[in-house]
């Protein structure tokens, strides 16, 4: 069978070409490894608390300050350095800490009330207050000012040098602490029955301690079906890489046309002199290119899943299926470019490279959010960009499983493939050439 003869020889030929092996096999694996080295830990350690480096400065030597420092030190996600202000500023300037927390302290009012005593625990505080209320017996303790936390405590503050995730975590920690502190003060100062205060303070303190945990900075709770587990958003980079690798098939098809068409090369002339219909020859060539491409993309997928141990959160067969369809799209587009541009030098290198990299860039290869920006500004681009369709399909697959969203992406890719083939057929259907 001539078809089989051409098909097998073409596969042999492609496997022996350094650029084919390099581009289609090696390059995606190298890039996947680079991604993994760069941010693979974000994916693997999504449930592990990240550590935020912070400097804590005790503004006064009192229990409020020291208990704050103790609290912060106990938090798993804080890497604390207790320093003076000058050193803290240096650390912040050098970027060694994400921010400086200035510990809360008692106001002069509190110090006066304590009269040199210390607050060992909440009960002692309550006792002290009770004594004070009874002893003072005046309305000063019940003034509106006195009901405010700021009357008794100087709030902790935060100084940061830039916007960032860690700074945001610190700011939220601060706000939560202040909320708890104000809550505590409110409970104490609004209680009608002073005897209930110790229990309230204890409960508040317990609840504060219990709730003072914060999730990972990588908070990415997304909806999933059937308890599938979370798909890390960083996997999107790998999806974009798979899309790029699939679209490298356009390179293969431009080289196929070079050897199949008389107006591209001498080998093309020899092939066209042979008694083989062009449709048979091109189909066999294209299919061989597709096989190579599917093998290379499968290797990449298996590498990501089993060597890098990053989970697609989906049956691999479906991952490979949509990647294979995207590869077919890449091949079809390559044939179309070759048919449109003829033997122009740009066809062999520039156009396939820029096509695959351009589509991949727009699907988030270099920066993950571009697809979202495009979706807001011009969503139709995402619907015709093969790379975006692939990443969307893999995303749906990982998040929702096999469903309409996935199949829709597969169908659009098939439609794009068919359209490219149709355009190519119109151009290539002529039997001979006006010039060679």
């Amino acid at each position, binding site marked *: *069978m*001539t078809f089989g*003869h*051409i098909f097998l*020889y073409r596969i*042999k*030929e492609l496997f*022996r*070409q350094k650029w084919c092996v390099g581009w289609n096999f090696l390059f995606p694996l190298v890039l996947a490894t680079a991604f993994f080295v760069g941010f693979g830990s974000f994916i693997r350690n999504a449930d592990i608390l990240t550590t935020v480096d912070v400097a804590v400065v005790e503004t006064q030597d009192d229990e409020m300050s020291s208990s704050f420092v103790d609290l912060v030190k106990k938090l798993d996600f804080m890497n604390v350095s207790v320093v003076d202000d000058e050193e803290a500023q240096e650390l912040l300037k050098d970027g060694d800490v994400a921010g400086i927390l200035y510990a809360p302290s008692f106001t002069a009012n509190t110090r006066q009330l304590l009269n040199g005593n210390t607050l060992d625990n909440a009960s002692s505080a309550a006792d002290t207050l009770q004594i004070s209320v009874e002893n003072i017996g005046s309305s000063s303790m019940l003034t509106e000012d006195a009901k405010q936390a700021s009357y008794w405590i100087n709030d902790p503050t935060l100084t940061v040098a830039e916007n960032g995730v860690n700074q945001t975590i610190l700011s939220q920690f601060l706000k939560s602490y202040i909320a708890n502190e104000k809550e505590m003060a409110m409970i104490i100062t609004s209680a009608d029955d002073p005897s209930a205060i110790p229990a309230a303070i204890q409960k508040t303190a317990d609840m504060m301690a219990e709730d003072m945990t914060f999730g990972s900075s990588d908070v990415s709770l997304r909806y999933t079906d059937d308890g599938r587990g979370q798909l890390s958003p960083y996997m999107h980079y790998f999806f974009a890489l798979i899309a790029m690798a699939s679209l490298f098939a356009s390179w293969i098809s431009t080289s196929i046309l070079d*050897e199949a068409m*008389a107006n591209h*090369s*001498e*080998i093309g*002339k*020899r*092939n*066209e*002199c*042979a*008694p*083989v*219909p062009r449709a048979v020859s091109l189909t066999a060539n294209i299919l061989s290119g597709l096989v190579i491409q599917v093998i290379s993309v499968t290797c990449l997928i298996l590498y990501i899943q089993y060597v890098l141990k990053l989970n697609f959160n989906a049956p691999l067969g479906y991952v490979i299926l949509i990647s294979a369809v995207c590869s077919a799209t890449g091949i079809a587009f390559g044939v179309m470019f070759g048919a449109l541009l003829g033997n122009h030098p740009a066809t062999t290198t520039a156009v396939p490279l820029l096509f695959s990299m351009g589509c991949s860039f727009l699907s988030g290869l270099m920066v993950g959010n571009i697809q979202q920006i495009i979706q807001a500004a011009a969503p139709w681009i995402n619907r015709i960009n093969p790379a975006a369709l692939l990443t969307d399909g893999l995303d749906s697959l990982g998040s929702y499983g096999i469903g309409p969203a996935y199949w829709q992406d597969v169908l659009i890719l098939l439609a794009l493939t068919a359209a490219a083939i149709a355009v190519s057929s119109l151009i290539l259907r002529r*039997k*001979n*050439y*006006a*010039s*060679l």
Partner: protein
Amino acid sequence: MDQNVVIRRDSDIAGNTQSSKHMSDVSSAASQPSSRQPVVRISGLVKRYHEKVAVDHFSLEVGEGEILGLLGPNGSGKTTTLNCLLALLKYDKGDIEIFGKPMDPSAYDIKRDIGVVMQNVAVIDSLSVYENIDFFCGLYIRDKALRKKYVEQAIDFTGLSDYRKYRPKKLSGGLLRRLNIACGIAHHPKLIIFDEPTVAVDPQSRNAILEGIRRLNKEGATIIYTSHYMEEVEELCSRIVIIDNGREVAEGTAAELKASLRNRETITVEVRQISEENLRGIREINHVYDVVQNGGTLVIRCDGGSHNLVHIMNFFMEKNIDFGRISTQLPTLNDVFLEITGKELRD
């Protein structure tokens, strides 16, 4: 001039296909080994590239078993004609038949019996010698066993047995050309087109190639051969067609074409000194039509006769003219070519 040789001047050519056909019938009748239907018939072929007419009402017939030499300067329309013949190029007018059937891109039955050896080497770099021949043979021959046999024959035929596993990049120029030939003839075609197959090839390889072509012809292949090496064409081809500016300008055997020249013999004599009177005397010798003195050498051109050298030497001795070495040269195909197509540089 031999009646079988047709030489056309520009003024003769007026797209007169009728006369062309008649003339080529006469010439082909004289030189064609067989009177069967021609293997190739091109009638009134016209191919234009925008304003330029690359092939201008060109007609050609190639009989079975012939080796036809197609000569022409660069840009004369040879390659365009061949591309039209192979149905690679669209043409504006004319008919092309091969094996008695109209040729078109989907005439796969015809293509099966055609072999092409391109001017530029057309082999696949990442396949070995054996694989290249096997691949291209496989486009023509479906039977695996038969193909294998043909491939081995082609390798033997072209002397590539020691290089079957080599890749094209490792082959010398001569070997590469032989591979190019093997890829074009492995499937035992009945019509083979050789487009300058011996370019940049050493004499030994060239000799081997020409020998091979003769063998192919002996085995029954009809051959169309183009080259700029006149001695090859003279040695190999049973009939020669010269094309210029897209038109046929001469046709005949090598002998017939040479005989068509006015200059039948060139005699060169070393003479230190000769008077004008003696020069006039030489011009008056029978069959001498031109005498040119280049420094110490006299170039005498004769338009016929068989004893010109004797007459000239007798004259020299009679007149006591002191002379040195004498040489005589018969016209070559190169002379014919230059005479017909002119000496101006082309391309």
